């Protein structure tokens, strides 16, 4: 009797059972690459020829998931690169914008959206810099960055010059993120930089024509001139001003910056900035709440590994993996290094818990895009990492054959006890297919209540991983709309309580590896049918609390107005 009642009290089971279950409670996702069927058919070109002799031809590959046309479906923006060889006119590689057709397919609308542009694209981030309700695009380049204003009619306009973001000199820009560091309601912009621009074409390896003689070898970025990060302040009139020096961002040592990840790490209500650096200590800029920052990475314990060793930091994300109300950091690193898990101690300091959490494996590949996400909707953040050799398979043969593991995806299940379990081999065929991946973006692309992943691959088609194994658990998708806070609500925090568990997430621009994931916050609710409480901490200290929010739906919450829309799917 009790057994039956129990069953009846549960939400309806999905029609499809999980693909592989070891036991009744054990759920495994079934990620399948559906990119080509979905119409993601443009290859990313980063090199343009058969060898990769330059450092420049190993980076780039940002990707973005965002709803550019406000139709409630995620669209995809893929950053493209270039090559040293000349391309026939009209055939130059360009970035690509794919509009979601709502049926599992996409249409390339790059040209229509006025986004066709060639160049050494690197990263991307999204934000509504002019608070007009349409998400704008910022694309970083080895060269000069570009800000695209969303016109709200399916087109974009390059407003780099008029927004005063046009760089006078070429830079090796890498990751970027919009943030409202002074909480004035206008999105500012942080841009990380890799090595000095002139090093992009430094000889990276020996020329095979020099057989039998010696030639210089460049070993990664070590020894090359580093760069400094840039912070632009939004003047609120459509223009930006470089405030790197005034805010203290430029005070840190020159480094090899890749991906910024903006979050309120110390729960003081002000966004701080973490930057994953390659081969140099990573940086944590603590927001001083007065328009300046202090770099505290080393003292905070997030700059290097547990032994003080610098790592080749690539991608980064933040999330509260242990449910203690504090945002922890996961950073992907170079091959032969572990991923880094920095546990937030709550006093402004972190401890490296990589080994303690069981994340010491999977070292053979270079690891790039990453995210804390809840693939099984059990309310505990799991970890996804994409990997890729420096040299794509089939290219640069003289650099050695990539190892078998290189280029596979890594999926760690959160065991709920501070440790993770590597379930990559059981996560579906899309995870084990090797690619030379870089950026990854996460979001519920197909409106299934589960997180899908889109990945940019070098000299290859993108990967679109759709989880075809429905989870038995509930979920809640939250979209925030700021009014006093910036319209995209970047930096605002949502706390969801369900089944006695509290989860926190923030709306974030940038992250992963030079990429942009969905702004909507996805919460797994386990077997709960509702979130008993949803607390929104808008950037700027305004707070709203909603109670008994039903599960399995998207809710749109506007600052000061509560839920202004919801959609069940």
């Amino acid at each position, binding site marked *: 009797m009790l057994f039956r009642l129990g069953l009846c009290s549960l939400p309806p089971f999905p029609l499809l059972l999980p693909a592989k279950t070891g036991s009744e409670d054990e759920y495994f996702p079934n990620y399948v690459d559906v990119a080509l069927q979905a119409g993601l058919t443009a290859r990313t070109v980063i090199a343009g020829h058969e060898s990769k002799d330059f450092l420049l031809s190993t980076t780039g590959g940002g990707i973005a998931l965002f709803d550019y046309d406000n139709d409630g479906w995620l669209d995809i923006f893929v950053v493209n690169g270039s090559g040293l060889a000349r391309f026939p006119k009209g055939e130059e590689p360009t970035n690509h914008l794919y509009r979601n057709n709502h049926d599992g397919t996409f249409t390339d609308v790059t040209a229509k959206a006025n986004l066709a542009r060639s160049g050494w694209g690197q990263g991307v981030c999204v934000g509504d810099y002019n608070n007009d309700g349409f998400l704008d695009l910022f694309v970083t380049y080895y060269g000069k960055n570009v800000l695209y204003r969303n016109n709200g009619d399916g087109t974009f306009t390059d407003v780099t010059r008029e927004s005063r973001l046009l760089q006078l000199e070429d830079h090796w820009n890498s990751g970027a993120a919009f943030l409202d560091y002074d909480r004035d309601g206008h999105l500012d912009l942080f841009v990380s930089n890799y090595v000095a621009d002139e090093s992009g074409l430094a000889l990276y390896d020996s020329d095979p024509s020099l057989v*039998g003689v010696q030639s210089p070898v460049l070993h990664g970025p070590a020894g090359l001139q580093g760069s400094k990060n840039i912070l632009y302040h939004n003047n609120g009139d459509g223009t930006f001003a470089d405030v790197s020096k005034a805010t203290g961002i430029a005070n840190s040592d020159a480094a090899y910056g890749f991906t910024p990840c903006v979050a309120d790490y110390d729960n003081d209500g002000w966004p701080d900035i973490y930057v994953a650096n390659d081969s140099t200590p990573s940086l944590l800029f603590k927001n001083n709440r007065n328009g300046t920052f202090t770099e505290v990475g080393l*003292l905070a314990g997030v700059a290097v590994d547990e032994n003080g060793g610098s790592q080749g930091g690539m991608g980064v994300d933040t999330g509260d993996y242990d449910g203690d109300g504090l945002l922890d950091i996961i950073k992907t690193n170079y091959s*032969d290094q572990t991923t880094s898990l920095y546990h937030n*101690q709550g006093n402004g300091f972190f*401890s490296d818990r990589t080994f303690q959490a069981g994340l010491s*494996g999977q*070292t*053979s590949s270079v690891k790039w895009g990453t995210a804390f996400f809840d693939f099984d909707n059990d309310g505990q953040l799991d970890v996804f990492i994409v990997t890729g050799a420096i040299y794509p398979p089939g290219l640069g043969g003289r650099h050695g054959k990539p190892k078998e593991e290189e280029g596979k995806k890594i999926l760690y299940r959160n065991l709920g006890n501070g440790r993770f379990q590597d379930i990559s081999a059981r996560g579906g065929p899309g995870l084990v297919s090797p690619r030379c991946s870089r950026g990854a973006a996460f979001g519920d692309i197909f409106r299934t209540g589960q997180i899908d992943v889109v990945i940019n691959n070098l000299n290859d088609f993108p990967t679109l991983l759709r989880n075809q194994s429905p989870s038995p658990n509930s979920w809640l998708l939250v979209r925030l709309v700021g009014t006093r806070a910036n319209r995209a609500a970047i930096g605002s925090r949502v706390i969801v309580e369900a089944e006695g568990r509290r989860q926190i997430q923030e709306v974030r621009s940038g992250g992963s590896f030079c990429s942009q994931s969905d702004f909507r916050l996805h919460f797994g609710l386990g077997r709960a049918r509702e979130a008993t409480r949803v607390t929104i901490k808008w950037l700027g200290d305004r707070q709203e609390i909603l109670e008994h929010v039903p599960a399995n739906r998207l809710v749109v919450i506007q600052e000061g107005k509560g839920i202004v829309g919801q959609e069940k799917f």
Partner: protein
Amino acid sequence: MLVRKSFEAVLSCYFRPIVLAFLVVTVPCALLKSQGNPANTSSAYDRAFQLLQAGQPDAALAEIDTALAREPDNPSLNNLRGLVTAKLGRSAEAEASFRKVIRLLPHAAMGYNNLAALLWRLGRSDDAAKTFRQALSEEPHNFTALVGLGTILAESRKSADALPYLEKAWGSQPGDFQTGYELARSLTELKKAGEAQKVLARVAPPQDSATRAKFYVLSAEIAEQLADQPAASRDYRRAYDLTPQSFEIYLALVRSTLAMRDPSWRQLPPPPAGLSPEQHLALGVMLASSGTYSEAISHFQQTLQLQPTSHLAAYNLALAYKEEGKSQAAIELLEHTVDQQPNAELYDLQASLEEDAGRYVQAVRHYQSAVDLDPGNEQYYFDLAAEYLVHLTFGPALEVFRVASQKFPASARLHVGEGLAQFALRQYGDAADTFMDALETDPTSPDAFLAWNALPTFVIVAAWEKIQPRLRHLAGRFPENPQAVFCYASALFRQNVASGQSDGLDLAQSLLGKVVRLNPRMAVAHLELGAVYAERQQSEKAVASFLEAIRLDPNSEMAHYKLGQIYRDLNQLTLAERELDLYRKLSRNHRDQMVRNRRAIRQFVLAKPAYDSASTKEKAPL
């Protein structure tokens, strides 16, 4: 290293101590005459003795034999007969005569002394010493026996044993030249130069030029021990002036003069005429070892003129050329020499010169030639593989190390090299295995220990099942070896942390505690112990361990970082910042150094992977 080793090898042939051997031959006439012989016997003895002194031993012997026919048991005549026959080289007769004297006068030291002196001259040192001891058992204060025994023991490199006899003799006859000389020599051998100098100061240099020269040589040796190079040089110079034909003394003079490190060597007298090739070589090596390369070159060249096939001369001449900044001349000399007479050692040197000159491909070819010519020499394999390794040409390096490790399994450094190449090729599990081979081959090897500890934790964790039994066995086999115990303890700790277990932490902590007791100066052990304490939240103990690690190794980035983190967690932020600042500086310096090193590296580009296993069973690649 190769250069120094070569010089030392040659010099060691020439710098054996210069030995002065004094024969103990006594003619105790007064003693014999006091034995109460008849008058006719006494006159016969006197005549015979005079004939002997006049250089007529045969006539003396005839006189003695005539007298002995009359009086066969006369000890004096028998003793004199022993002396005469000894002088005539009729040793057996002499020995028989002295033994008869002993039978006739068993309680007198005389017979023993003369027999002992004879035996020693015959090279029967042990018998001689035994006989002198018999003399001393009869007459404990007998001066001749004391000096004789002391001299024999000193000659037999038993200076400490000789010392009491010589001191006793010196006490009874202070100022006696032979006793003083032997005593000073023994004291010098025992590194008591100060005492030796005092003794020698009390004896006057003899007039005989050969003995006087030996006196000055000993005086010079004492001065060298006292680091008084000018005095040493002065006395060697005196000795050489007395014996200008002595090459050994000249070499010593050169050595002591060069040691003064001033231009006085330019006033050296010319060497003895007609030096042999070996002597030119020795002189050249001496000069080269002191950095006087141009003069050394001259002697090496003369060696080669006298002995064109001397590869040792070519080797040293090439080295001297190199030191003079004439590397190209050195290379050309070696090229010419190996063309005429291929030699592994010369190829090895040629390779190192090519390497210095930045011609890495040529260098590796010459290293290969050395291996081909002398495949039984571990050094050449090591040099070849190391050449590949330092130029990041890991595949060939691994292959050479692999072949060499199989050929020389007892060489820990070859295992280390193989492991390093595997590590560079990202064959981490294999590298861990190979480093274990090195540790098992020689658990005291600093290189093996360093290599093992450079393995990232993730490698140890991944290879744990395979290496754990070997590590445990190693620690069990060498329980008093801190390196062996540390390797097991450290790996156990790290594995426990990574696996989320804690059942091995107690053992790891206990073993690390043992390590720091076995070797309190092992900084990495204190560091690791601190990490264990930190993991177990025992912050104060962790601080103490990290501080000790830093005291022992102030440049440990890791120790400063970990200490900074612990201070931070203890909210001692000023201390934390100080440690992290130190870490930052060390880390920056390290990074800069790495960059400089990397910029200096030149990598080979191989035409094809010529190092397939089939072709390298006997030969290294290329």
